């Protein structure tokens, strides 16, 4: 009975994992196609598409550079905005700090197409539509909810006795913040940074409205060519993005507390 149950469970988990992996595997295989169409199994397998994506076709090379630059910059801006918001929320827990946290989570919680349309209008009035700067700030605003959440979890996980000890030894609030709180929450800050980075990397709706065709990121480039169908070169982009996600989340899991970040009870190990 026990063995049967364990077997059934394993079977269910394995089939679910297969379902999740299936389209991803198919896309990866499609990148090997020799022709221009996405066939599975691939015809005349070749690695030439990788060369096109990373080296020879300027469209994709530029798009990848924009993707990487915007992802890193917007993640940095998002963390800088998120830190004070999360700090005030934890330190004061006042109605005002809660309002700040709610307002900064709005762009992420509501349909991105609405925020994207609004940002398009806003940057047009500011005469910044189509600038990389607008793209970076837009993604930072869209995703700032993520570092606010991870940093808040980090702050809550601090053992109060550390702060008591610092206070007893005469540390001021600023010193405590610098020498105790910042180092203890660093893994959570870094996790928030990389969550934002990966989501910015993959986002395209908001970017579509704020870039105004002046530049494009990889996902936006694919989105724009949607009407002409997918091509194997785009599948190389997919592989790149999947690899980046697995690398980043793997590192967060290795050096951070992934179950804790996802909200599991921290005491249960």
């Amino acid at each position, binding site marked *: 009975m026990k063995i049967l*149950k364990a077997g059934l469970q394993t079977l*269910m*988990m394995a089939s*679910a*994992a297969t379902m999740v992996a*299936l*389209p*991803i595997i*198919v896309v990866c295989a*499609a990148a090997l196609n020799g022709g221009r169409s*996405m*066939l*599975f199994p691939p015809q005349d397998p070749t690695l030439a598409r990788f060369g096109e994506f990373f080296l020879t076709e300027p469209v994709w090379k530029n798009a990848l550079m924009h993707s990487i630059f915007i992802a890193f910059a917007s993640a940095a801006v998002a963390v800088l905005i998120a830190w*004070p*918001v999360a700090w*005030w929320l934890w*330190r*004061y827990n*006042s109605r*005002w700090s809660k309002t700040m946290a709610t*307002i900064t989570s*709005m*762009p992420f919680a*509501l*349909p991105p*197409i*609405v*925020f994207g*349309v609004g940002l398009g*209008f806003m940057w047009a*009035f500011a005469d910044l539509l189509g600038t990389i700067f607008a793209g970076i700030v837009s993604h930072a*605003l869209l995703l700032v909810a993520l570092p606010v959440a991870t940093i808040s979890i980090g702050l809550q996980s*601090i053992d*109060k006795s550390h*702060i*008591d000890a610092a*206070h007893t030894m005469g540390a*001021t*609030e600023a010193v405590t913040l610098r020498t105790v709180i910042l180092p203890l929450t660093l893994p959570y800050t870094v996790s928030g940074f990389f969550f934002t980075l*990966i989501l910015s990397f*993959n*986002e*395209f709706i908001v970017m579509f*409205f704020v870039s105004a065709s002046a530049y494009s990121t990889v*996902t936006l480039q*694919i*989105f724009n060519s*949607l009407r002409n169908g*997918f091509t194997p070169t785009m599948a190389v982009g*997919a592989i790149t*993005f999947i690899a980046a*996600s*697995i690398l980043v*989340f793997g590192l967060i*899991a290795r050096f951070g507390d992934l*179950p804790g970040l*996802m909200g*599991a*009870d921290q005491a249960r*190990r």
Partner: protein
Amino acid sequence: MTTTVGVESSTTPPPGLAPPQRRLPLANTIFCVVVVSFCIIPFLLVIAISFGEKIEGAAWRWSFDHSNYLRFFVGADWPDTRTTLYIRRLWFSFYYAIIASVLAVATAFPFAYVMSRQSRRSQTLWLVFLLSAVSLSEVFVVMGWDILLSNRSGLPMVFKETGLTDWLKTSGWFEVLREWGLANPRNVRFKPTDFATIVTMSYLVWPYAVILLYPALARIDNSMLEAARTMGAPPLTVLRTVVLPSVRLPVIGTTLILFVFLLGSYVAITVFAHPSRQTLAVSVYDSVRGATMNAPFGAAQAIVLLITAVLVLLIVWMIGRRTEALQ
């Protein structure tokens, strides 16, 4: 703004810290004002422009008329004629999103439950896998399903090559599939169908469903389950009397969050849904940046979408409050 800080502090503030100091209040205030305005101005602009007026060409001007909303709900020529085109699109937004989110939660639940009972290490590995899948851009997910469901490769080819199509034809099921729109005269087909749209949308949020259900399930105390079992409850009774009651509200909350998330999905709809069965998100895009170029009307449609999302999220919030009150 900063002067009000710290007055109500009651629960979380760490005991060791000194009372709040009023240093740099100006810098703090500027920071807050800038961040809040950047988060809110886009929404306010959409609201304001939804009352605007389109002028010939691609431009528009400020105004205060509600003809855009009138056009949305009853059509531009009302009361002479009445069109429900945009109401239909709103309905399709609802229809795809609700079926896909319920499907995702129903299939993610057993997975999340088993996952939450595993060791911390395997939980972490699963989470890496799920996070990588969920962060994957909609364009890549649709790309994968496009290959899997298109007629030249993928499932229809598999059906044909394995003889499944012939078997369906002889057994009579083929006619049923044709009635459902899942087959053309020669073979099964999935593009464009509601089936393909819903499967892809459900796939989009499935890992997200596991991630959202996981904390609630991980917090169920193992000793409760063991107590129920020692008292002789069969597994299904344990599930029904211990597990489900404690996660009822999170399950509803998760479904609604996924629903709001799917209201905005765009690529899956344009690639898989029939042109006459497309959603409001697609139509917002068409109005603002696509063929029709009518920003005020696009903004009005976006506001309808926004109000729907806000109402649903308010329900989620109230569920969250109740869950907290129960604990």
